[in-house]
């Protein structure tokens, strides 16, 4: 690990000022990813600005949603009674990620900005365009079972590792930022970038911008939302495929139709993947197996397999159909009660 300076920020404004003043400064959340990457010398910050003491509350918003401070731990979000009741997919997504120890340390802001777990990104002896722009990509012809089938480019096929972010993508969350120019908001789905030719640029954050909060909009159908994660072992492993989903039915019409739906995928894409194509096929259509299959196929039409991950296309298709089917069953029950 390279030597660095440490500063404990007392408020968000002061944290940003400190970051502006110092080249090579990075914000420090729980450290569960950053400290590990520093130890591998993948990350070499000259200064850490500790922001874990800032914005540690979860508050109701006037709109009827929740405002989650960026410094709240993953465990505290997952355990919050309001999140468990109103946004169960978010609790479930967080609880399927990492271990209890890591969830107790990791913050919301840090989870959003965690780096890929591509082994070639971690291995400083390997070629990686994300770590060293222009170096090449050893994953493309390497061990790429865990890599992306969606949103990849010739320069990078690394997946975004977060479970929490897949839930936030489905929920249309908003990200609150503070930078040298002041506050602004981003739609969560606009935060992360696809790699294209610049895989080292992972988000739309501007220099020195700090994530201060994540806002969940009110979304009544999220009461029946769920998150399912498929992986190589039952616990404490990254996703091969994960699916966040919720469905609202319209039973007033002759044929029962899908009034509204949210669908997002993890483990298969270079960013938390909102399944816009599938949603477009589903909305307003009869809630039948044929519709679900057509939706899954529409989303995966552009999927591009690598040497070791073609199985993910069929796996993603099956898990999407199974999950949407279950949400429809749940929505019918919910409609009756």
């Amino acid at each position, binding site marked *: 690990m390279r030597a660095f300076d440490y500063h404990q920020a007392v408020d968000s404004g002061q944290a940003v000022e400190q970051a502006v003043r110092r080249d090579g400064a990075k914000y*420090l959340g729980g450290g569960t990813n950053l*400290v590990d990457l520093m130890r591998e010398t993948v990350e070499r910050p000259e200064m850490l600005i500790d922001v874990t003491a800032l914005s540690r509350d979860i508050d109701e918003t006037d709109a009827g949603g929740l405002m989650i401070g960026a410094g709240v731990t993953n465990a505290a979000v997952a355990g919050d009674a309001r999140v468990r009741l109103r946004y169960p997919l978010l609790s479930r997504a967080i*609880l399927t990620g990492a271990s*209890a120890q*890591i969830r107790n*340390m990791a913050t919301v802001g840090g989870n959003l900005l965690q780096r890929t777990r591509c082994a070639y990104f971690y291995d400083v002896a390997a070629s990686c365009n994300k770590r060293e722009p222009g170096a090449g990509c050893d994953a493309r012809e390497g061990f790429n079972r865990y890599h992306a089938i969606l949103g990849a480019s010739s320069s990078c096929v690394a997946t975004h590792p977060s479970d929490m972010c897949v839930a936030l993508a489905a929920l249309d969350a908003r990200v609150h930022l503070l930078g040298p120019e002041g506050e602004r908001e981003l739609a969560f789905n606009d935060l992360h970038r696809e790699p294209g030719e610049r895989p080292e640029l992972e988000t739309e954050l501007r220099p020195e911008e700090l994530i201060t909060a994540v806002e969940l909009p009110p979304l009544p159908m999220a009461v029946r939302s769920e998150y399912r*994660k498929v992986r190589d072992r*039952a*616990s404490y492993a990254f996703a091969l495929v994960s699916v966040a989903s919720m469905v609202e039915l319209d039973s007033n019409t002759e044929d029962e139709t899908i009034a509204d739906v949210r669908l997002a995928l993890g483990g298969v894409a270079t960013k938390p993947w909102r399944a816009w194509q599938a949603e477009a096929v589903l909305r307003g259509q009869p809630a039948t197996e044929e519709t679900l299959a057509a939706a899954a196929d529409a989303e995966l039409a552009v999927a591009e397999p690598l040497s070791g991950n073609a199985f993910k296309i069929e796996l993603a298709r099956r898990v999407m159909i199974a999950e949407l089917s279950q949400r429809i069953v749940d929505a019918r029950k919910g409609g009756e009660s």
Partner: protein
Amino acid sequence: MKWTINGHVREAEVDFRTSLLDLLREHFQLSGTKKGCNQGACGACTVLLDGQRINACLALAVQVQGRDIMTVEGLAEGDALHPIQAAFVEHDGFQCGYCTPGQICSAVGLAEEFERGLPSAVTKDLVASDIEPSHDELRERMSGNLCRCGAYNGIVAAVADSLGREVRR
């Protein structure tokens, strides 16, 4: 820098690069907390930070200044083992013993999470506050602690037993 470790205020001036794990082992000679993978994968370094279990290898000492840290050395009261330690002995919750301090600290954190009614990934009803500590629940909640000897059956029996004891007390 200052920390409260096992109830005692301890001070040291250390390089910012020092992890909490190295602080405990190298500066305060508390070698009960083990270094396994040093990258957050094995759980051998599990300690309690303000009562919550964390991986000491992923925390910087500077980052947890002023906080309350409990290690395996702080659990027993004199010669009287903590109920979870006693349960590990009774159920053979170990073979070589290297992962054991982390397993035990993790189980202490787990008990506190159960008391607060917190769900896990395998909890069917996320809204429920009274969650049965089933075999599946315990395996899931202890998944951050690996045991290369494979003493998991004994570990789960010990954790289940200690939760029962705490309920009965």
